[in-house]
């Protein structure tokens, strides 16, 4: 039996109303559990509340009802507990690659020299050797995402939240990054939650996929991806995967029609 590192217990959440024109996503009695070392993707149409789930986990928002357990504990202030990698790389343009990477360590109060040592050990693996003194504006899109990922890893948390990290990359870079990410995940034994709107990406990367829906009722379904690891892109053409992909796309499209 694997250990749960993240549990949502009957979580209900909605943004304070007041803005009636723009309908905010709602989470109602959401219940799920993510185990140590799992790779779970969350898919759903835009406005289905994917990012809201991340905001709840990071502690930027508080559930109205229900509880969230991180590594078995429910805290009133959850900020600083997980590694979060946002959709845009959100690197500070005035900081070099090195200074961007050490940011989470700096905030934790680690001495600068120690932080730099720690980052230096990882630069090679992240394909960032030799660019540590460059500024983000000098980097390619894929490199920026790697810096951003490195920064989330350095949060030191066992749980990483990745919010559509590859959506802005071209197809080939994206595939490379996906394979690289799987390699890193296997090596670092982290638990990853991954938001995407790309069904194939979710199938290729994850153990399980959560599907978030707003219509007819706010709900969360889940499917297990029928693939073993290590995986290959060609696995995506297997019959059972193709059928699942069809189902998932149908479900997403249903919501878009509304």
């Amino acid at each position: 039996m694997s250990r749960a590192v993240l549990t949502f217990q009957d979580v209900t959440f909605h943004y304070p109303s007041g803005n009636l024109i723009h309908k905010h996503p709602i989470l109602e009695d959401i219940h799920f559990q993510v185990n140590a070392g799992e790779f779970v993707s969350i898919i759903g149409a835009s406005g289905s509340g994917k990012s809201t789930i991340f905001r709840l986990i990071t502690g930027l928002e508080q559930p109205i009802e229900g509880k969230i357990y991180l590594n078995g504990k429910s805290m009133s202030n959850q900020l600083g507990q997980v590694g979060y990698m946002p959709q845009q790389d959100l690197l500070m343009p005035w900081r070099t690659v090195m200074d961007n990477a050490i940011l989470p360590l700096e905030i934790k109060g680690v001495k600068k020299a120690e932080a730099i040592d720690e980052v230096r050990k990882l630069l090679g693996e992240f394909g960032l050797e030799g660019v540590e003194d460059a500024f983000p504006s000098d980097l390619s899109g894929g490199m920026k995402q790697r810096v951003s990922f490195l920064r989330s890893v350095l949060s030191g948390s066992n749980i990483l939240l990745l919010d559509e990290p590859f959506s802005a990359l071209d197809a080939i870079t994206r595939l490379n990054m996906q394979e690289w990410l799987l390699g890193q995940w296997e090596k670092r034994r982290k638990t990853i939650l991954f938001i995407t709107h790309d069904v194939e990406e979710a199938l290729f990367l994850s153990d399980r996929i959560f599907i978030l829906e707003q219509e007819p009722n706010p709900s969360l379904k889940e499917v297990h991806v029928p693939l073993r690891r290590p995986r290959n892109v060609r696995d995506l053409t297997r019959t059972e995967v193709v059928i699942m992909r069809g189902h998932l796309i149908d479900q997403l499209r249903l919501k878009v029609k509304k």
Partner: protein
Amino acid sequence: MKHYIFSTSLVLLILIGWEVGAQIYNKSYILPAPTDILLKLWELKGILLLEHLPATLLIMVIGLAISLLIGGGLAIWMNKSQLLEKTFYPIIITSQTIPIIALAPIFVLWFGYSIWSKVVVTVLITFFPITVSTFDGLRSSDKDMKELLFTMGASKRDIFFKLDIPTALPSFFSGLKVAVTLSVIGAAIGEWLGAQAGLGYFSRRMMTQFDGAGVFAPILLLSIVGVSLFLFVTSIEKYFLKWRNR
């Protein structure tokens, strides 16, 4: 240097035109020739550089320092609280519609011929660009970046020093560049109205003596001071904003 070749040529052209015109007109108390001004500057170099320039510089430096304190402080304050922003921002804008030159004699009345009447004029002219640019810079810090820092467990203090301040720097420097050039004007106006030393004071005194070249010589010096200060700020800016130079 190639960058300045066009503006330099234009200035030279104008100077030559001026020189020729002034020689033909030949009334140096109204229109002194550039060469007259340079000669005058040379002639008066001792008194101008050792006595009047330091007096003016002191006003500018004190004025700018006070403006930085008030402007920076107000900007940080207004960025912290909406109430303070709503209270002060309109007042600061309105304060700029007051013709400071018209008010300046009052300051002489209040502060006498001491350095402070001149400093007040300089502060009133220079604090505005510093306040507004710093405030706008602070306000423009990225909300998503701020949230990301919070998810790392950052404190408000971290956000201020690691996000707000670096975000505000480019805008702050733009304001400071405007302020240093304005400080020349502020100091000169202040001295015009009542002083016992300073380049502005000296220029006005020469006016009463119908010494055209003597009016212009300290003004030339003032302009050189303004440009030097501007370049000085630009070089500090380049140092702090290395990432923008790429």
